[in-house]
C-alpha cells in the first residue's frame, strides 16, 4: 500500500516537471515526433453504483500515459493506472493495470499551416496489475483506430476500439469529440498558448448487448511545452451496464520532452 502511494506520488512529480488537441477520455490520431516522449498524468474521481448489488463506491485513479515516437509515424504507448477504491467502508489501493499499445499512423494530409487530417491504427493489450481485487485477471487484447481533423479553430476526433476480455463479453468503444479554440481566435508569431473547449460523446457496447453512453465537457490550456486539462463526464444513457457511474471528474497535465 505504502509503496503504491509512493510510486503514485513519484509519477505525479515526473509529470509535473514534465500533447495536444487530444480530448481527455478518448484516443486521437496524434503522435510524438521520432525520438520524442509525450507524458500525460491524469487523475480521475468517480462515484458509482453496482447495478447488481446496489453498492455505492468511490474510485480515485491516477494514470500516467507515456507515448514514445519510435518513428515519425509509429509510437509506443504505455499507460500505468493506480487505483484507490472505497466500497461499503472497505478501501483498497493498488496498480490495476498496465496498457501497452502500438500506434501506427496510416493517413496524414497536412492541408495548410494549421489544418491537418490524420488517422492511426492502435493495437496492444491491457496487462493485469499487482492487486487481484482491483485488476482484471487476464491479458485483454485491444485493437482500434482513431482519426483527427484540425480545421481552423475546430478539432474533430473519432475513435473505435475493440477489447477482448477472457470470460467476459467483448467490449466496443465508439467515441467522438469536438475541440474548439476559444482563445486566441487566430495564432500569431508570438502566441504562447491557447485555450480550448472539449466536448466528448463516449459510448461503450458489449457483445451481450449492454451499453452505456456518456458525455464529457472540459477545458484545455495548451502552452508550447505543456498543457493542462479539466473535464467532467456524466452518464446520458444506460442499458444493462453493470456499473452505473454518477460522474467522473478528470484533471490532467501534459508535457512533451
Amino acid at each position, binding site marked *: 500500500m505504502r509503496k503504491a502511494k509512493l510510486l503514485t506520488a513519484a509519477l505525479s512529480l515526473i509529470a509535473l516537471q514534465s500533447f*495536444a488537441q487530444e480530448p481527455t477520455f478518448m484516443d486521437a490520431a496524434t503522435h*510524438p515526433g521520432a*525520438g520524442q516522449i509525450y507524458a500525460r498524468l491524469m487523475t480521475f474521481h468517480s462515484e458509482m453504483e453496482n447495478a447488481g448489488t446496489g453498492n455505492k463506491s468511490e474510485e480515485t485513479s491516477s494514470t500516467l500515459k507515456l507515448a514514445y*515516437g519510435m518513428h515519425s509515424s509509429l509510437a509506443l504507448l504505455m499507460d500505468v493506472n493506480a487505483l484507490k477504491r472505497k466500497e461499503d467502508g472497505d478501501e483498497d489501493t493498488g496498480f490495476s493495470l498496465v496498457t501497452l499499445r502500438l500506434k501506427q499512423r*496510416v493517413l496524414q494530409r497536412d492541408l495548410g*499551416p*494549421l489544418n491537418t487530417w490524420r488517422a492511426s491504427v492502435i493495437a496492444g493489450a491491457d496487462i493485469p496489475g499487482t492487486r487481484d481485487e482491483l485488476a482484471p485477471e487476464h491479458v485483454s487484447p485491444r485493437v482500434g483506430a482513431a482519426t483527427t481533423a*484540425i480545421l481552423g479553430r475546430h478539432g474533430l476526433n473519432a475513435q473505435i476500439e475493440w477489447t477482448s476480455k477472457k470470460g467476459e463479453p467483448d467490449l466496443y468503444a465508439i467515441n467522438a469529440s469536438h475541440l474548439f479554440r476559444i482563445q486566441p481566435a487566430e495564432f500569431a508569431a508570438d502566441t504562447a498558448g491557447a485555450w480550448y473547449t472539449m466536448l466528448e460523446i463516449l459510448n461503450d457496447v458489449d457483445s451481450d448487448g449492454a451499453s452505456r453512453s456518456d458525455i464529457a465537457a472540459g477545458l484545455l490550456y495548451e502552452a508550447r*511545452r505543456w498543457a493542462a486539462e479539466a473535464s467532467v463526464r456524466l452518464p446520458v444513457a444506460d442499458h444493462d451496464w453493470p456499473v452505473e457511474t454518477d460522474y467522473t471528474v478528470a484533471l490532467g497535465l501534459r508535457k512533451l520532452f
Partner: protein
Amino acid sequence: MGRFVILVLILLSAAGCSSLNNSSGPAVDDEPLTAYRTVILVVHGLSCPLCASSIENGLRKVDEIESSSIDLKTGEVTVNLKEEHSVTRARLAKAVADSGFTLREIRTAGVAE
C-alpha cells in the same frame, strides 16, 4: 487470441502498405546551404502550440542549427544556422518529417558573411 493476432497483422500490413501519407512534401535535393546563415522552412500541419515544441525538439537534433523560432499563423520556421555549418536541404527536410509535419518549401534568407 488468434483472431486478435490476425487482426493486428492485417491492420499493421494495411498501415505499412499505406500510400496516404503526404508528410514528405515535395522532393528536396541534397543541396548544401553553406552560403546561408538563415533559412525559412514553410511547414504545414502545425495545428497547435505544442506542435511547435515538437518541431523545435526535432530541429534541436541538427547540430548545425543555432536557434529556431516558429510563427504558428503562417507555419514559417525561421532557422538560424551556425557559422561554417554544412547543413543541407535534405537534412532539414528530414528533421521536419521526423517531427511528423509536412515541409512545403525552404526559403533562403540571410547570407553567410
